[in-house]
């Protein structure tokens, strides 16, 4: 018989991070199923780099290695970077991105718990500005299916037989629709552009929509485990759906349907795994709603009117900047005190 008081044992960073990694597995499984094992290689590269970079910085900062290396936060960052990059990107891209995320975005700001910006998104934004040609090359499903793992390996490490990336890649659905719509001469609508898209699935890109569904499943499990609260993902999904839905109802020829937006690009990954980073996101309940809604809205704006393949990284960084303000403005009332 236990006596009161019944105290919760606070979850350790390690157990939280491990469960986040577990929750990523359904999405990764779908990824491997549709696009081959290349993504596992990228994840391994990112993880190794993250450990190495973190060990070096910890050493330089004179911090103990073991507790920080084993807390799993570096792995989460590494996996998120690998999952947001195209699976056949050259190896140095992912290594450079992960090293920047760990050294610049995380440790120069003071390490875990101190970084104002989401490290994975800092790395992604830097890389897409520096190497847009590599980060907009997403492999097309039919081409990847014909590649075995050895060919993918050769591709990533730029070994012979070298293949040109152009033959394997095609525009992502977000890109394809934007290009079609912005092409003034063709006068296409969403429906006709989508009908011409070679890898159209039920909701979005065939294959990647299932990856998104995997993230969704993992994310729901994280909510059930109370690793994340409902505020961030629900507000993100609702805002993105609302913005896309309103525009779609007004002008279905030029604005894609809400489900398309939710299952394209990194939307699901962002909703459950990226914007829920406990360090760089808002922390108060109302603040979380504002933060996630802001990320979703900016993402939608960039997707519809911007020039980059996806807008999530920029949206997250922009809202990261607003977090101190949001948190200050939404402090909950302390019980017994007037506001």
């Amino acid at each position, binding site marked *: 018989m236990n006596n009161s008081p019944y105290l919760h044992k606070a979850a350790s960073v390690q157990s939280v991070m491990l469960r986040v990694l577990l929750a990523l597995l359904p999405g990764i499984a779908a990824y491997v199923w549709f696009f081959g094992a290349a993504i596992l290689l990228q994840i391994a590269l990112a993880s190794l780099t993250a450990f190495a970079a973190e060990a070096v910085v910890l050493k330089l900062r004179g911090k103990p290695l073991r507790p920080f290396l084993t807390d799993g936060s570096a792995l989460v960052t590494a996996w998120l970077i690998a999952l947001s990059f195209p699976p056949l990107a050259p190896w140095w891209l992912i290594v450079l991105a992960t090293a920047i995320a760990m050294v610049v975005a995380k440790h120069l700001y003071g390490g875990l718990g101190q970084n104002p910006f989401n490290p994975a998104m800092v790395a992604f934004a830097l890389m897409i500005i*520096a190497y847009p040609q590599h980060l907009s090359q997403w492999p097309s499903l039919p081409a990847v299916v014909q590649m075995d793992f050895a060919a993918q390996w050769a591709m990533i490490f730029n070994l012979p037989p070298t293949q040109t990336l152009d033959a394997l890649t095609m525009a992502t659905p977000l890109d394809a629709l934007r290009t079609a719509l912005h092409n003034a001469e063709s006068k296409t609508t969403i429906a006709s552009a989508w009908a011409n898209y070679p890898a159209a699935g039920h909701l979005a890109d065939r294959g990647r929509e299932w990856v998104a569904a995997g993230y969704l499943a993992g994310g729901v499990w994280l909510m059930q485990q109370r690793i994340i609260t409902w505020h961030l993902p629900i507000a993100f999904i609702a805002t993105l759906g609302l913005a896309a839905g309103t525009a779609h109802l007004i002008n279905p020829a030029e604005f894609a349907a809400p489900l398309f937006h939710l299952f394209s690009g990194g939307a699901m990954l962002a909703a459950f795994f990226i914007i829920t980073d406990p360090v760089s996101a808002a922390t108060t309940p109302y603040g979380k709603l504002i933060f996630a809604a802001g990320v979703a809205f900016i993402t939608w704006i960039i997707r519809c009117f911007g020039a980059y393949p996806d807008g999530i990284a920029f949206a997250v960084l922009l809202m990261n900047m607003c977090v101190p303000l949001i948190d200050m403005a939404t402090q909950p009332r302390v019980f017994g005190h007037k506001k």
Partner: protein
Amino acid sequence: MNDISKNGLWQQNAILVQLLGLCPVLAISTTLVNAVSLGLATILVMLLANLAIASLRTLIPYEIRIPVFVLIIAALVTVVDLSLNAFLHDLYVMLGIFIPLIVTNCIVLARVEAFAAKNGLAAATLDGAMMGVGFLWVIALIGGLRELIGQGTLFSGIEMIFPSLTHIQLLPADYPGFLVMMLPPGAFFTLGLLIAGRNWLTARTKQRLPNQHMEAAPSAEKTPPVAA
């Protein structure tokens, strides 16, 4: 004399410590040649401005000194601006608005107001030159780093000054470049890292010599307000 040089080059470095004149530092330091050219132009203006104002300082009414200083600086910058346009036209086009903008560079006015207006001719000239050299080496370092990491070369654009020379390809020709370093964020990153490096060096020196240099070290701590 020694103190003036030390202040200009390191202790009171215009960019790394006073954080003055950052607008041209961030905007023009895309390549080594651009950075050095702007640095030389700035040295010239600072040296002449300090010289002119130190020699006129007893004649300038205190109440309207700032407009007079700015007029003198503007006249000097116009001379530099026109000479560059005449003799190095390509470079002039490259540096664009940032040559005329030396007039508004805070470091020029700051040295004139804080030093030349209160000191003798020789000291003021030396101060202008040394502050300028302090500006030059930092902007050259930023420019060199950004060019090297950004596109793997050094001295690109040297043909604008010496038509017979060409740039050096330091990294292999298939180096993919790192575009961010050539864009404005690269300037902020590089400057931030350099300031951090200087603070680290100062902190280490202070740690090693706990009893000496107590009067020199605090200068690094109080950071003056940032001005563009």
